[in-house]
Every structure is written in structure tokens, then in C-alpha cells.
């Protein structure tokens, strides 16, 4: 391994890292909002929307992100004649995929809170919305944290697929280095290190939050 090569690659990987973080977290932000809305639709069995939500969840969870991205990146311009920006496509694609996973996570969290907690709250004169907000969701969040953190890690890893639609994130940077030079070992070593920089903090902070929140909510 050539350390000079590694040092000289660092700025390139740093740029890749920033794009991975930027697109990854933006996609995750979308997926959280989308997931929460979808979970509430499914939980409250909103007519029509519920069916759409279920189909959405199943399709997105059972097809590879790569294919979803191709659909958005190549399909939409063909169908609607809109020019698409690859970063926007990547973020939207990741958001849609993540939304499906987050929806399932939030829904099972909500279901883990007994219906009798809802009854207890409405018996005190709260509306269902107040009960949802003050009683059910805070507990559901606690139940959801482990699966939520797993989703974060999964989605951040999935950003590596972005390289296939020419987003210059970490994986793209590595592939590019390998293609244009004979520095395969150094390029791969760096990509591993940089993904660890992205993911380890999430993993560590995630498990601390998990423990703290569990303790704060349920005392064990």
C-alpha cells in the first residue's frame, strides 16, 4: 500500500464523503416525513390512501434501489420530458425507499403501544389527535428506535448505489480511482475507511440513544 497515494487521494474522498452525507441525510429526512405520514395513514385505515400506502410499501421494499433509481433517472425524462438532475433523483429515490421502511418501523412502533392506552387517554377527554400526540407517539418512538437506527445505517449504505447514476459520492470516487489508475488497494482501503467514518457514529450514537430513551420511558 502506498501512503503517498492515499494522502493525495484524501481531498477527492473528502468531496465524495460530503456528497454521500449530503444526499444520504437529505434522503433520510424525506424518508422520515414520508414514513410517518404513511404509517399514520395505514394505522388509521384512511380509505383509498391506505391501499395506496400498502402498495407503495410493498413495491419499494421488494425491488432493488438500483432499479428504482434507473426508473426515476432514465424513465421520468422519457415519460414526461423533464430534465432530471442526478442528485435530486438520488435523494428522491432514497427518500421513497426509506419512506417504505420507516413506515413499517413507525407502524409497528405504534402498534406496540396498547390500544387501551388510547382508551385511557380518550377517557380523560382527550381527542384522538391529542392522545396520539401526547400518549401514543412518544411511546411508539421509543419502541421504534432500534429499527429506526437500523434503517439509518441501511439507507446510508444504500447511497453507494448512487454511483450508478453518476453521483460523485464515495463509491463513485473509489470506482473512478480504480478505473483511471492502478491503485485498487489504496482506493478500496480509503472507501472502507470513509464509510466507517459515515456509519460508526450513527451506530454508536444510535445505541446510546436507544438505551437512554428506553430507560427514560420505561425504566429498563
Amino acid at each position, binding site marked *: 500500500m502506498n501512503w503517498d497515494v492515499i494522502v493525495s487521494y484524501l481531498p477527492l474522498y473528502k468531496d465524495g464523503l460530503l456528497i454521500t452525507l449530503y444526499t444520504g441525510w437529505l434522503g433520510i429526512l424525506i424518508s422520515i416525513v414520508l414514513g410517518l405520514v404513511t404509517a399514520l395513514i395505514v394505522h388509521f385505515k384512511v380509505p383509498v390512501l391506505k391501499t395506496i400506502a400498502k402498495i407503495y410499501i410493498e413495491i419499494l421494499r421488494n425491488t432493488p434501489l438500483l432499479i428504482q433509481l434507473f426508473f426515476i433517472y432514465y424513465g421520468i425524462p422519457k415519460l414526461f420530458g423533464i430534465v432530471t438532475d442526478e442528485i435530486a433523483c438520488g435523494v428522491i429515490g432514497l427518500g421513497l425507499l426509506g419512506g417504505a421502511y420507516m413506515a413499517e418501523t413507525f407502524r409497528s412502533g405504534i402498534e406496540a403501544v396498547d390500544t387501551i392506552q388510547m382508551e385511557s387517554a380518550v377517557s380523560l377527554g382527550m381527542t384522538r389527535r391529542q392522545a396520539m400526540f*401526547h400518549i401514543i407517539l412518544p411511546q411508539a418512538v421509543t419502541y421504534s428506535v432500534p429499527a429506526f437506527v437500523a434503517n439509518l445505517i441501511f439507507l446510508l449504505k444504500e447511497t453507494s448505489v448512487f454511483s450508478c447514476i453518476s453521483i460523485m459520492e464515495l463509491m463513485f470516487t473509489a470506482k473512478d480511482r480504480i478505473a483511471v489508475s492502478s491503485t485498487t488497494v489504496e482506493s478500496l482501503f480509503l472507501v472502507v475507511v470513509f464509510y466507517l467514518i459515515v456509519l460508526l457514529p450513527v451506530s454508536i450514537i444510535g445505541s446510546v440513544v436507544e438505551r437512554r430513551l428506553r430507560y427514560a420511558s420505561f425504566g429498563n
Partner: protein
Amino acid sequence: MADTVLTINNIKKSYGDNLILNGLSLDVHKGEVIVIIGPSGCGKSTLLRCINALEPIQGGEIRLDGELIDGKSRNLAQTRQKIGMVFQNYELFPHKTVLQNIILAPMKVQKRSKDEVTEEAEQLLERVGLLDKRDSYPRQLSGGQMQRVAIVRALCMHPEIMLFDEVTAALDPEMVREVLDTMLELAKNGRTMLIVTHEMNFARAIADRVIFLDGGEIVEEGDPEDFFTHPKTERAQKFLHTFEYESVKHK
């Protein structure tokens, strides 16, 4: 008679084909303590759940202070404030402290000031001997303590009527007493209460009127002394008999 708080008129309730309440009627007067007893599965919990519209009814009507209780009404939350419900398993909110459990609904629902509600909550906690637990979480309390908090939580909404569904059934025997004493005190202070219980001695002590429910209807009702010493109907006699033990010792 004194004013009627709750009127239940000919209600029908079924789960699918299974008819649980078959044209049941009952008037509850202000300050009255009614104990509902009956065999397991006769619909006691269902009746209480219908009263605060946790279950829809298929016929008849229920009125509180003359106002119709309707599960679909926009005013349902408004009406439910006037009905305090205490559940068998307490159903405190596990992520909130004792005090937060109590003051949440008065603040959010009745828009009362935090200071005012906190003061009232503390007074009520003091009365049930739990003021020192105000900042504890439910998990740190015993069953009996949790149930007393649940009672205080309901009281703090200033309900017109309190519903108790076997509130001591999940408790260890040594904790039953503290909860029953709390309820006796409420009765003494003129609370209107509807109590479902299997504690017969307690029923006898607290009730102004006993209702015996079986087969979806009120089979017998009356003064507790009369009911427990001379039940008129055969079904009530048979039911009360299940609580007695024949001596097997040779005399």
C-alpha cells in the same frame, strides 16, 4: 328522587351475533353509589365501556346530564371529561411521571393553568398518601399506588360520575384495602359512582344500590342489605352462593 345524572335507556349491545346487553335501562342519581355485580362475561365491563362510548351501542340511548352520549359526535371529548374511568390495570402513561399523568388532561383538554392544576393534583395526592411520589414514574410504584394515582388522575378532571371496572382485581391482596379505602372516602364525600367489583363485602359497605347483571339484563336490583341477605331471584341466590364456603369440619 334527587336529580338524575346518568340515564341509560333500553340499550342493546352485541359483538357480531353475540348479544351482550339486551335492552338494559338504568338511572343513576346524583351522589348515588351503584355497585354492579354478576358472573364473569355477563357484560359488566361492556356496560361501563358503552357509557363512555369506548364501545358503540346498537340500540337505545345513554344520556349524561340530559346530553346524548354519541360515539360519532363532535362533542364526545367534551362529554367524556365528565366521566372518570378507572381501569383494572391502571393504564397510567408509562412515559410520564405521576404528576404529569395527572395534570396532562386538565391542561390540554380543559386549558387550565399548570399552577392551578398542579396545586389541586398535589392536594389530591396528599389525600391518598402519595404526595412523595409526585415525581416518580409509574414503574416505580406498587399496583395499589398506581391505582390510587389513576383515581386521582380521573378526579382531577372534576367528573360528574366515576366508573370503576374491577379496580382491585389485578392487585395483591394486601394492596386491595388501600384502594378500597380511597373509594369509600369518595363515596362519603358524595361522589356519584358506578362500581364493578367482585369484592362482596366492599360492595355491601359502599353501595346505595346493588345491580345484579346476568344474561344481558338487570336481573335484580335493590338495597345492599336486602340483596345480600335475602336475594329474591334464584339466579342471584346461586351467584351469591359461589362466594360462600361450606364448612367441612365436624361440629
